[in-house]
């Protein structure tokens, strides 16, 4: 490789990216055996719900309010969108509980935890702007209730829930982009640092590596195939 190429910003970015996340970490052959537990399934369940949300939301945006209010298929996609949001929050909260109680920020995973927490916080206004973008009495009620709360904390001047155009822009563009970027960063960080092990297993690994004679030798975490 010539010196000119080595100074290229694309080369630097590529080398940094591959060093941070080599292909075998980005797309691993398998996961540790401790991942074979239902409590580890709620992160991917959240992502599955998010895919349904974005797909149904894209269809709703393409067809418009008259379609989702006055046609049967529009009602159907409106319901799909709303119930996918319910499932998204349901799975995300159970995921959060599970990760909180296993202290998932251990082992250099602070940024994994922080990106997950921020995703939850950004998802809340994403849902709120969706409720006030419905263009019905429900949206009017929610927006007039929410404006008092937002005004009381001083953000109503630049985040006006009674301004439909602003709320719709937030809901279909700005906040979904933020959620997708945060979720992508979260998943890439999980790939980089690995899924957090259960606390008991990690303690055993630490004691084994410390060479405690009384402890039976603990093998490194076995992996299972990605498709199993």
């Amino acid at each position, binding site marked *: 490789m010539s010196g000119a190429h080595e100074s290229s910003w694309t080369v630097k970015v590529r080398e940094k990216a591959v060093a941070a996340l080599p292909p075998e970490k980005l797309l691993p052959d398998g996961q540790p055996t401790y991942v074979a537990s239902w409590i580890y399934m709620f992160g991917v369940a959240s992502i599955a719900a998010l895919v349904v949300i974005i797909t149904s939301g894209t269809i709703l945006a393409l067809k418009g309010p008259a379609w989702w209010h006055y046609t049967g298929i529009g009602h159907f996609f409106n319901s799909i969108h709303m119930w996918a949001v319910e499932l998204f929050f349901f799975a995300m909260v159970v995921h959060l509980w599970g990760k909180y109680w296993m202290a998932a920020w251990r082992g250099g995973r602070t940024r994994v935890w922080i990106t997950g927490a921020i995703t939850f916080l950004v998802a809340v206004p994403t849902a709120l702007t969706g409720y006030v973008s419905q263009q019905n009495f429900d949206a009017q009620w929610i927006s007039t209730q929410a404006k008092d709360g937002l005004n009381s904390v001083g953000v109503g001047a630049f985040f006006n829930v009674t301004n439909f155009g602003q709320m719709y822009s937030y809901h279909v563009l700005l906040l979904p982009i933020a959620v997708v970027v945060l979720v992508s960063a979260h998943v890439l960080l999980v790939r980089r640092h690995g899924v957090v092990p259960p606390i008991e297993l990690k303690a055993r690994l630490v004691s084994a590596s410390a060479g405690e004679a009384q402890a039976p030798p603990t093998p490194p975490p*076995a992996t299972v195939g990605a498709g199993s």
Partner: protein
Amino acid sequence: MSHPAMTAVMGAVFNLNHPAHVVHWHFIKLPLANVLVIASMLVVFAIALFVPFPGAARRAAARRGGGAP
């Protein structure tokens, strides 16, 4: 549009023609629907902790026995 027959059937199962039920205990005031969702999240959380994952026992046994997982 909803089919009238379907509306009648669903209306018979879920009568929503009333003010929302609210659970009120001291300063805590929650719609019953939200309470049910929170309770179901707790139930699902407990199930996820205690119900064995399909194949997990077989993999653990294979690992203890030194065989391929």
